[in-house]
């Protein structure tokens, strides 16, 4: 992984702890993501993987530990969340497109409203990203007129329109039919090859093999192990990892 070594650290998480009420979801999680690095996070449900990436853009607030995003320390009660979120794009399992806006309007809403880009420029950027995910011809339709795979690709384009430095993916293919999973993964692979820094919570191990720099396995709110995909799949060190892999591979 020579292209990564020594690159700038974009996300640095140290000793992160989070509780939902009395329930301890994240236990001393530490993770460092460098510029252009691709992380795949996997693990059984309830292991805290979604919560981990949701803490990074402050959809969840953590109680202990430090998160530094692109050199800015994330404050615990979400005081600087607007600043943090500006650099992070997020794609959700359930797409979460805005159903009352057209595909194009979904993509231009934040640039025109939050970042005050002129409408024309915002639309051009949006069309460029929509073309990139192969959906430019659907730009005038409403999200619910599209298939799941198309909707998820729009969601990716919408995130890209805010020019994020980091992309977070929260199980982006879990709600999709097999044929649609591939069209979304193809877009993600392309994004990875273009040098986007990405953290993907996913069980698509083919994707992990193909593009990941590191695969992280979580269980019970802890990072059990973290390794290059070659090493991770060839000889996982923990029995828990072995058991998990034997189920999903």
């Amino acid at each position, binding site marked *: 992984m020579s292209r990564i070594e020594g690159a700038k650290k974009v996300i640095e998480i140290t000793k992160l702890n989070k509780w939902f009420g009395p329930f301890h979801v994240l236990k001393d999680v530490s993770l460092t993501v460098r510029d252009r690095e691709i992380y795949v996070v996997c693990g059984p449900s309830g292991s805290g993987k979604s919560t981990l990436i949701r803490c990074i853009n402050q959809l969840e607030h953590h109680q202990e530990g430090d998160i530094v995003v692109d050199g800015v320390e994330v404050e615990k009660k979400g005081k600087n969340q607007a600043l943090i979120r500006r650099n992070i794009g997020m794609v959700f399992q359930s797409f*979460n497109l805005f159903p009352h806006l057209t595909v194009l309007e979904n993509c231009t809403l934040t640039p025109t409203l939050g970042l005050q880009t002129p409408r024309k420029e915002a639309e051009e950027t949006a069309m460029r990203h929509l073309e990139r995910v192969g959906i430019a011809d659907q730009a005038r339709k409403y999200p619910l007129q599209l298939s799941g795979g198309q909707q998820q690709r729009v969601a990716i384009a919408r995130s890209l329109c805010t020019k994020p430095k980091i992309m977070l993916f929260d199980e982006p293919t879990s709600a999709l039919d097999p044929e649609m999973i591939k069209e979304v993964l193809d877009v993600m692979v392309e994004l990875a090859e273009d040098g986007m820094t990405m953290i993907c919570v996913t069980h698509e191990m083919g994707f992990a093999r193909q593009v990941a720099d590191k695969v992280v396995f979580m269980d019970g709110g802890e990072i059990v192990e973290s390794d290059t995909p070659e090493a991770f799949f060839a000889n996982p060190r923990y029995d828990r990892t072995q058991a998990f892999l034997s189920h999903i591979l």
Partner: protein
Amino acid sequence: MTIVFQPKPSRPAPSNVVGPAAWLRQNLFKDIPNTLMTILGLYIAVTVVGWVLNWAVFNAVWDADNRRECLDMVGRSGACWPGVAKWLPNMIYGLYPKDQVWRINLGFLALIVWMIPLWMGGVKSKVAIGLSAVLLYPFLASYFFLGGSKGVVWSALIALGLSGFVWVWATAICERVTGLSVGEWIGRRFAGATEDVKQKRVRQIAALLLFLVCYGVVSQWSLPGVRTQLWGGLFLTLVISGIGITFSLPAGILLALGRRSNMPVISLLSTLFIELFRSVPLITILFMFNTMLPLFLPEGTSVNQLVRAIVAVCLFAAAYMAEVIRGGLQAIPKGQYEAAASLGLGYWQTTTQVIMPQALKIMIPTIVGNFIGLFKDTTLVSIIGLFDLMNMARAVGEDSDWLGLFIEPFFVVSLIYFVFCFAMSSYSIGLERKLSAGRDR
């Protein structure tokens, strides 16, 4: 060797599934109970309609000088319309001076003309036009209705209303012809297409000029004053419910947002207000505002009785509307908030652009239902002595010439209420259909 998969072509549905005959069989004559119900329904409909027509049209008296004459002619088997006809102007305009009634007509006509651009094709500034009708029209209308002397501030507000009216039509015509709003058009015409700063200044000057001209017109314009005590009938009903409806929606939205706020003080105050006004009957609130409010005001100040009634209706309606809106907000999935947050949108951006449009759309039937309820609830103001449509109808039967004539005026009042409520309801159904076209699964 691979075989190429050929999907079967679709065939048209068999004739017992589609077509009017199939529809009849499916819906009206499916089996014996269904057929019996159809026949029974038809029988009831024919009898009731026949009875009403006989009473209201065929047996009715159309020409008489008092109720005695009517009774002598047909007894109670036919309606006695002359009384209603004689009172109809009062039922519509109340005791408004006869020679000034044109002001009411013109005032409502102005509102209709104001809103016509909303239904015209090629007009883009529809939101601004709609907002201007809500925010500026009332100033213009109140002078039409009230008249009387006006100070500088009052004149300025009326002039603002008049400029709004001029602007709406200028923009509507300009956008149809040139595709630009009138401000943009003037800016480009007098400052060049590229000079942004200069364009803005030209637009400001144009707006100021318009306002000054309107102020000039308004200051020369004077209408004799009509005390609100003379207002009544349908006119009064429309004024009270119109103000109630236009106030309740924005106020309800703010209260609903307040109740869901993370800030405990705001949330507590909103909840308190909503629960207080929701748990007291409207009649009680009207009474309280009418009799108790003057006690709290400093000696010598008096608030017009109509204003007291309107304030009471507005606050009551806002509390109900708040709960309707909150229901709509509750129905928006958490993912919408999260997506907006992850895109970096702030609270007000998320609320106005993402959440509210969806919440209001879901709640259109309930919101309009509330409007209809409010429209009908305004009949309660008769209890504090305002002569609204309902109270006027009752006055007919208390007139010495028409003593006891109650059914006929109430029948007419019911028809008037039905026309208004049905119009609102149809509009809401049309709106729902328009908004959901192509956006639902």
